[in-house]
Each structure stands twice: as C-alpha cells, then as structure tokens.
C-alpha cells in the first residue's frame, strides 16, 4: 500500500538520474537525486510510494543507476502503461517490481492511496474505490523479484 506519485509518458533515464551523478557509487547517494530531472521534490515523498506513469517509462540509457536510484528512494513499485525494454530488464534484475497496466494512469490522481497485489496484478485505488488489473508477472520474473534480483540467483548458481 502506498501513495501514488504520478508522471506522464516517456519518462527517460536522464531525468530519472541525470548523467552527472553516474560517477556516484553509493546507491543511497544516487537515490537523493532520483527523478531530479522531472520532480526535484520526489525524494521527500518517495518512501513507500508507488510511481504511476504513462507509456515508455525508462526510455534511453542502459544505466542501471536509474532503477537503483528509484529502489533506494523507497518506492514499492513502478506501474506504467508500458516500459522501455532495457529499463524493464534492469528493474527486474535488481529486484524493483514493475507492472504494466493499460489504464491505471487515467484512474489515479497524484497522492491517491493505492493497494497492490504483486502476484495477481490487482490494484485498488482506495481513495476513489476503483480497481484495475495489471498484467500479471510471469513466474520467472516473480521469482527474480522474490529473490531480490538476479544476483542472488547467480550467487546460488556459482556456489
């Protein structure tokens, strides 16, 4: 459960984490600058929030610092109409849940309280008493998120 922070279409990796911060190696330091390019106040409201966005979220660079900065900002999930390919993979790989939901953006206003069941993809807007259905995650992606990312899987494979 969390409050929605809403953005539009084509939120790119440069605005999620501007290039000049990519030399930073501490994920908590990166998080301080998350979404700085579109919303400098993001980090003040991100804890336990849910990011709701339009189409093509995360387009642009392959920089994994983009989903890392979001994860360490404390958000629980990004729900978008669609994601750019590299961002989607990166988010899953680091254990940041990302869900595709066609119409959620139209049913949610900034600050609405949402509840979410990751397994089924059922979303409730508690502020407006509306439900939405995200595309359920395939099992192997759910497994990666439950393991908090690909590294833990690789670790097991190596031992």
């Amino acid at each position, binding site marked *: 459960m969390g409050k929605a922070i809403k953005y539009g279409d084509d939120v790119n990796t440069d*605005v999620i984490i501007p290039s000049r911060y990519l*030399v930073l190696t501490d994920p908590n330091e990166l998080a301080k600058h998350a979404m700085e390019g579109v919303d400098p106040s993001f980090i003040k409201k991100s804890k336990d929030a849910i990011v709701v966005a339009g189409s*093509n979220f995360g387009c642009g660079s392959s920089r994994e610092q983009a989903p890392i900065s979001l994860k360490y900002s404390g958000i629980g999930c990004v729900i978008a109409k669609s994601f750019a390919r590299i961002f989607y993979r990166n988010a899953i790989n680091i254990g940041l849940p990302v869900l595709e939901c066609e119409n959620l953006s139209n049913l949610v206003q900034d600050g609405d309280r949402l509840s979410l069941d990751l397994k089924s993809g059922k979303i409730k807007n508690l502020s407006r008493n509306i439900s939405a259905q995200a595309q359920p995650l395939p099992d192997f992606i759910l497994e990666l998120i439950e393991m908090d990312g690909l590294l833990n899987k*690789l670790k097991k494979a190596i031992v």
Partner: protein
Amino acid sequence: MNIIEKILSRASGKESVYPGEIIEANIDCAMVNEITGHLTIKYFHEIGAKEVWNKDKIVMVLDHTIPAGSVEAAELHKIMREFAREQEIKAFYDVGRGGISHQVMVEKAHVKPGDVVVGADSHTCTYGAIGAFSTGIGSTDMTAVFTTGRLWFKVPKMIKVMVNGNFRKFVSPKDLFLKIAKILGVSGANYKGLEFKGSTISEMSVDGRMTICNMVIEVGGKVGIVEPDKKSLTYVKSRTSDQFSIIKSDPDAEYERTLEITVNNLRPLVSCPNAVDNVKPVSEMEGIELDQVFIGSCTNGRLEDLRIVAEILKGNTVSNNTRLIIIPASQEIYLNALLEGLIETFLLAGATVANPTCGACYGGHIGMLASGEVCLSTTNRNFIGRMGSLKSKVYLASPATAAVSAITGRITDPTSYKSG
C-alpha cells in the same frame, strides 16, 4: 527467417526461432564502459565469482569521462584498470588508446558479422551496421554474461525499413534516421528490431550505416541491422583475418511491417527539444540562435562526418555568438583527421577539438550547457538536461547542418546556405 532470427537460432543452438520466443544465447563478445562496468565488477565480486567466462571475449573501454574530470571518475577508471589486469583482459582501452566504445568495437574488429554482442550501453545497437545482432543491457545482466557467457533474449519482431533513392548534397544518413524517428515515434519500435534495406542502404558507407543503427534505441528498438554486403565485408576483412559466417535474411522472410522511404526529396531535418521524435525540417527552424554547436559522439563523430564538416568550415569562421566543439569518435579517427588536415581546418575556423570521449553528448564533463543555453548537436538524444542544465535546450541534426549553423550562429539549412 530474417537475419535476426537466423543469428539467434545459431547462437542458441536451435534449428529455428520465432518472434516472442524466449531463448538463451551464447555471447560472442561483451563490452563495458566505466559508467556501467564498475557496477558489473562490484556485482561480480559480490556473488563470489573468481574468473570471467572468457577473457578474450570481453572488451573494456574507458570512454564516458576521459581523461578523468573528477576524483570520482578517476576511481571508476581505477576499478576498471585493476579488473582488466586481474582477469587478464587484453582488450582494455585506457585513456588515449581507443576512444568511444561503439566506434572501437567495430574499428578494432571485436564484432564480426553474424555475432551476438551485448554492451552495457544503450547504443550498442550500432554494430548492426556490419550485420551483427548487438544490443544494450544493464550491469546486472552483464554480470550474468561475465560469469556464464550466456543471456536470455526474447526474439524481437522485425520491421523492414526499405530505403531507396539518392541523397541530395548535404543530406545524410542522420537526416534519414530523424525521418524514421518522426514516423515511428520514440517508442514505435519498443521490443522490436529494424532491418534496413534498399538501394540507399547498399550505397551507404559503413560510417553511415553505423549512424542509423546507432539511433535505433531512440525509437525503442532492440536491434538495428544491415545484412552483410560487399561494402561491410570489405570493411571487416580489412580489419581482421578472423573467420565468420555471412548470415542474410531469406527472400521470403517475415516482418511485422514494412516502411518505405524515398530519400530523393529528403531535406535536412532537426529534432527539437526535448524528444527525439519532435522532428521538423531545418528550413522551418532557421534563425534559432545557438550558444553552442557540438559535432561528434558515437552517432556522428566518424571520419565521413568530419570530412563534410571540414568541407563546409574551410575558409570560414565560427560565429562570434557561438562556440563549436568537435570530438572525433576514436583515436584512429582523430589521427586520420589530423593527417588529412581536417583538424587544422577546424582550428583555423575557431573550433575547439577535444579528445574522443562521450563527455559532451551525455552531459558528463565537457561542453556542459548553462541555464537558458541552446545547443545544436550531432548526437542522439535531446532529453531535458541531457548536456547540462535542466534549463538548457538541445537540437539534434546532421554534421552538415551543425557545421553551417556554427558559421551563422543560428540554425541554418545547409542545402540553401551560400558561403561568404
């Protein structure tokens, strides 16, 4: 099958694959730079891995912040240098050795036609120019590649882009791609690939093919590819004696859709702030005043680009109202530009020529823009704050448009510009 399905079939050991199928492929070459590579190295150690899967198939390039412009950048370089030494990775390109990774990968023949190549940088799609499947991935996926040499892929649906006709003078592959971006939009090829075909592509140099494949990610594409032909094979064979197989699409290959484009009447185009698909004819945007012009990057910092720029700048000077920064994409290009006298032309015109680096294109450390400033750039992205201040603006165009605009200090159509 189309070329991508054939390459992925070979790499996954299957007879055939179909769009949407999830396959696991053997990787022929993997590239990291310091911005994404330092994370891969951290994760590699974190999971307790001891040795990379194949030290001869990993390429490490310092390119985003070279020479190091800050202590933080220097620390990232150090991590890369030590890892290359520890793992005995020979293809390590330090400052002054290689240049921008995507140019180096093709120039030094780390990529061959038919290969499956991944790079921890989104513009890895560039190598489709010589008939390879190449795509950008993140640092964690790269850790999987470093340790296992394999990675899963979803076989992409392919869009055939048929391009015919001849470019007018000072209209170039960059203008062609901006036209494609306008048609498809910034997510029009998300999860898909583009195969470029037709007479224009056959006539196009490898340099030009690298430009159009480079920008495929800007429409969301996973790969861009041109099947190998005489031009690309001559290029590759002049740089390596390694064996490779020539893979092409079947005549009856299936595509999701076909785009038909004729370039005979194509005019110079410009991508306006802040989205790559916000494309207008240069003639409609003429007069916009420019604080900075940048020519370079993995999109348009090649020798062919620099030659056009020199042709235009020769005997002219950069406007007093603007500054021109030129960055060759690699050390090899830099040297050739010097030997051909291009660098002299640039300096006499009043340009600053910097060493190969991604710094200017991605707002890292060279030519950063102040608030309110406007730049015309030959790079691939004009996102908000891309080259510096969040309040600066970036227009994208071809090297010819950039060179003419540097002389006038305003966005100017190179096809109608009369020198002097």
